């Protein structure tokens, strides 16, 4: 009976997407942030004295490299509707471990590997508490934020270790020969490609969006939600550990309070880059542009002689504006779509 109706009216076709491909690629939040970044660079180059010097790029990339690195796993975590607030504390812990290792006479690569391992273990503690104990990641990582920072400061006290092999500190600060681009960009690009492929081109990556949009539905589709999250926290810990080694060598300084407050800068950049704090939405190119946008803007404002408080205000306003505009647009869209739906419905009803 019902099948007969189908053949009578001809097969109904649905377009796979609401918009053509070019529009889906170009008119996105990500491209908007990238566009804004270019605009800021352009305006700063014209209006801010000294911004066009090659030093700007060197200092900028060097300084935001830890944020760039940790933003990668953070994006994946926030897409699954979780959060990791302990990353900066893991950076501090890893920094202290690197320092203690070098002080104990280990060669730096070995100390660095141990520090990254410590970071990985710290991440797996977060992951285990979220996955196997079933606690919300916000609560868990607020706890480990204090815990890891406490251990880091406890291990070194108020002292600092600052006698790292010159070869490694010089290497950390080196630029790619002939360019003003710091060498750290190479490991970052490698990690960015790995995380980009993982998120956007693998079943694992797709499952993150599914988890972020609806945990139960994802679980019923055969995704191991808990284990997926566990691995995300492990990755976050490992990358934070690496960032800690970089931070230590960059500033030639291992201290327990290194990178305090970095987690908020990372999360702010990720959200600015178009990742939804409610999960299920976001892409890596936008996040990278988000980090660069905040970094470039504050670098330009500093060069223009703006004080740190005003810079914080501007970054804050930008972030709030971007989040509010996203929610506002989404709200507007659903209203429009439902209005069209009602209109269509009425039209079809009168047809029949």
């Amino acid at each position, binding site marked *: 009976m019902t099948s007969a109706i189908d053949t009578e009216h001809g097969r109904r076709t649905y377009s796979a997407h609401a918009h053509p491909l070019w529009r889906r690629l170009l008119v996105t939040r990500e491209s908007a942030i990238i*566009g804004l970044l270019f605009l800021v660079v352009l305006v700063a180059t014209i209006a801010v004295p*000294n911004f066009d010097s090659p030093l700007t790029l060197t200092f900028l990339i060097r300084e935001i490299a830890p944020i760039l690195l940790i933003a990668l796993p953070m994006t994946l975590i926030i897409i699954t509707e979780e959060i990791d607030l302990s990353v900066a504390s893991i950076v501090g812990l890893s920094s202290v471990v690197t320092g203690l290792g070098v002080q104990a006479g280990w060669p730096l690569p070995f100390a660095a590997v141990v520090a990254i391992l410590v970071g990985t273990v710290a991440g797996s503690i977060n992951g285990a508490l979220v996955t196997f104990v079933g606690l919300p990641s916000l609560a868990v990582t607020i706890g480990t934020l204090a815990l890891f920072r406490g251990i880091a400061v406890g291990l070194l006290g108020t002292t600092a270790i600052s006698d790292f092999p010159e070869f490694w500190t010089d290497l950390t600060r080196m630029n790619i020969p002939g360019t003003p681009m710091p060498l750290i960009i190479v490991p970052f690009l490698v990690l960015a490609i790995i995380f980009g492929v993982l998120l956007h081109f693998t079943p694992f990556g797709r499952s993150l969006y599914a988890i972020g949009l609806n945990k139960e539905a994802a679980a019923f589709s055969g995704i191991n939600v808990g284990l997926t999250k566990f691995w995300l926290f492990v990755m976050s810990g490992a990358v934070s550990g690496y960032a800690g080694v970089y931070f230590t060598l960059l*500033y030639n300084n291992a201290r327990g309070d290194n990178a305090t407050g970095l987690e908020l800068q990372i999360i702010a950049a990720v959200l600015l880059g178009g990742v939804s704090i409610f999960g299920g939405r976001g892409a890596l190119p936008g996040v990278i542009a988000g980090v660069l946008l905040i970094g470039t803007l504050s670098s330009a404002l500093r060069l223009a*002689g703006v004080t740190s408080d005003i810079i914080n205000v501007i970054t804050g306003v930008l972030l709030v504006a971007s989040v509010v505009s996203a929610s506002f647009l989404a709200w507007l869209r659903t209203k429009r779509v439902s209005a069209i739906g009602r209109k269509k419905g009425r039209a079809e009803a009168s047809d029949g």
Partner: protein
Amino acid sequence: MFTLKRKRFGVGLAAVAATAALVLTGCASDGDTSDGGSSDGGSGDTSDVSITMLPKNLGNPYFDTSTGGAEEAVSEMGGTFEEVGPSEASPTSQVQYIQTAAQQGVGGLIVSANDPEAICDALDEARSVGVKVVTFDSDTNPECRDLFINQATAEGIAQVQVDLITEQIGDEGQIAILSASANATNQNAWIEMMEAELEANHPDVELVEVAYGDDDDQTSFDKTAALLQTYPELKGIVSPTTVGIAAAARYLQTSEFQGEVSLTGLGTPNQMREYVEDGTVTAFALWNPADLGYLAAYATAALVTGEITGAEGDTFDAGTLGSYEVGADATVLLGDPYVFDADNIGDFDF
């Protein structure tokens, strides 16, 4: 179609806000970020010297006072002055401001270091592009800067505290010291020198105990109470730490010993104001941050113009403070600690 428009509108809004901020500030600062103007001729002409001051953090009354001093010096000399700084005093938060100063090509940078090592490489980079680096208040490793403006020497601090307490108690009787923690390097060095000075020049003064308040307000308060109970004959307390002296003063103020037992040491005017005004404390010492900033600015200008190189024995003129000589390790000493009492405490706000 409409989604397209709306999106552009929302993003456009953010873009306009961000770039407007940038353009406005960029234009506003065009004037004062002139090209650094370091005339290396040694002419002593300071009118085009640009100096950037980088305290540990902004919004700190102590550094507001030192910046005020530096600003006054620059306005006397001519030249441009700017204060920049992070909102928190974390070890690496100053690095970006040092880099910015290097990019702007300022003539001189005056820094109070949050960490002696973490900002070293940034300072070296700044110096390699011709920025003269002067530290004040908190030094970096000596090889990272051109000059350090030292607020006080250990000898000076020990001397002024002994002078103050012996004067207040009439040079005889029992005194005690309320220090920070038992392993605080600075305090221990001062206490040792104070003991030597007491022994040498004040035979009738007896140091009965060194108590440790751990730089904790409550502990210091309790230790003060314990000292006064243990030694009923106690005539004076010296507390060479700002936390200790404030806690001791608070105890004395409410106790029967107010006015009977003298209290002095190192404190800040804002902490000690009410105790000086009600007579609990007659006088205490510290250095004057305004003078420190003033001297740092003159020293920086002298470096920028090539009048001095930071070598031992170099002399330069520091406005109303007079003439100064560079000491060992490229250090300039501000002078004897500054004594605050009821007559002058009103002039200070830090």
